[in-house]
């Protein structure tokens, strides 16, 4: 699994993400009141990086290997470990300068990555080999947009900063997101282990391919 992860995970991208995340949280620590949008931006970037790490750019090859989606996802998840560790270390290092909700901040980062992995794995289980690029191209800017403009702060408390904001609602939102993501990931992996391997080939859903082309057994019987 280590060998697989060493070749499959975009490590340079992961390293760049770790450095950028650390830099963003360092800037936040200088002046949390004014630089707080960068905290949300960093969380969006982590989600995007997690999604990119799950892309199977060589799906046509790995589909032929005796490795199910769950195994390959677990191997690729090794690329998310440095991202999660970087996020936790960044938050814990500057925790004294942030609002006293460290556990919530840790949940935000890890929950966002779990959400990304779940969504991308679900798409992979449905035949899209490289859904991470499209997912990241949406989640990074949209989360940045939410972090900067902070629409409806009392009802959509995604990235609260002030003490009078709805921190409890924020905890509920992120807990729900993380729990839902875990359920989605489980469903995707169980679908993957029950015969999805033939569905994933060059990113083309199986239903888009005629049955005679999809199943080589048909031709064997004819001969």
């Amino acid at each position, binding site marked *: 699994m280590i060998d697989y992860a060493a070749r499959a995970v975009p490590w340079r991208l992961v390293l760049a993400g770790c450095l*950028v995340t650390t*830099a963003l949280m360092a800037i936040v620590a200088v002046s949390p009141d004014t630089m707080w949008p960068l905290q949300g931006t960093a969380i969006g970037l982590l989600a995007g990086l997690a999604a990119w790490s799950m892309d199977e750019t060589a799906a046509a090859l790995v589909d032929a290997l005796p490795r199910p989606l769950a195994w390959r996802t677990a191997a690729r998840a090794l690329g998310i470990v440095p991202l999660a560790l970087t996020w936790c270390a960044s938050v814990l290092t500057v925790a004294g300068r942030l609002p006293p909700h460290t556990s919530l901040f840790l949940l935000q980062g890890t929950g966002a990555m779990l959400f990304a992995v779940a969504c991308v794995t679900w798409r992979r289980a449905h035949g899209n080999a490289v859904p991470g690029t499209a997912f990241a191209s949406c989640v990074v*800017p949209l989360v940045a*947009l939410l972090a*900067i403009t902070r*629409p409806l702060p009392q009802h959509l408390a995604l990235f609260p900063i002030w003490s009078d904001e709805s921190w409890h609602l924020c905890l509920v939102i992120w807990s729900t997101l993380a729990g839902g993501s875990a359920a989605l990931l489980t469903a995707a992996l169980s679908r993957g282990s029950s015969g999805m391997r033939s569905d994933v080939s060059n990113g083309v859903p199986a239903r888009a391919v005629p049955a005679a082309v999809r199943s080589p057994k048909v031709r064997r019987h004819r001969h």
Partner: protein
Amino acid sequence: MSPAAASTLSVLARVEMGRCARHPLFLTGIVVTTLFCFVDPDPQLGVLFHAIVPATAIGVLGIFVLASLTRRSQTIHAAAGAVPVAERTRSLALVAACLVPFAAGLAWWAWAFITYRNHAAPPNGFPFGPVGDGWAAAVLFGEGPLACLGGPLLGILVGRWSGARAAPALTAVGVIATCLVMQGLFEPLRRIRVVMPWTYFGGPAGIPGDPNRILLYSGSPAWWCVYVACLCALAVLAIVLHDRESPRRPVLMLAAGVGAAAAVAVGLAMWTGVDHTLVNPLPSS
């Protein structure tokens, strides 16, 4: 440019503008910007602090929109094989597509300026002192429509020059981080903040004893708009420069001229207009 090439450019430009206008991220940005127009502006800061919305929702998202359109254009070109359309023509068509977000930014600017004229700032609000409607119009134009134009141009630039799939995201995060740092809140950076393509010209930066006191930052927003327009022109030239099959020397000469104009404009933006940071004499509350 020959008539045939101009005709091709016209057709391609219309196609790319349609793709840009239908892109889900662009539509999301339009919806968000429109919804924020219905939110009452802060009574003390006014509509001048609404400019962050189009700059992010159309400008920053525009980086991703045009980067994806550029990548799609390259993919179609690679799939088609040898085609008689030069890369420069395809690049200029993508540049023309940036007029769509710019037009959206102009619409926002018209709304914002009318709103600014109809909602006078209180004496302890923003702006105050020796600035008039022209100053506010320039601030809104630089922070709104020009950001809506510059972001998408940056997206094409990144898409043309970098093949990395994460390049648009890392570029956008870099732009957000540097613009936040250089928005004028840190006093030592206040004079040079106008080198950034997006910044504020005042706000509740506070003073000792009154953390929300309104300040008016130094600099000339009109010259800053000229500088940002020069940056946009430089971005177009850098996009065109990627094509190695067309003559590059005239483009380089033009880029040198525009770069010199940008340097002069940013110097004037720093040292003309409001000559030093002004503190509102009235307390914030």
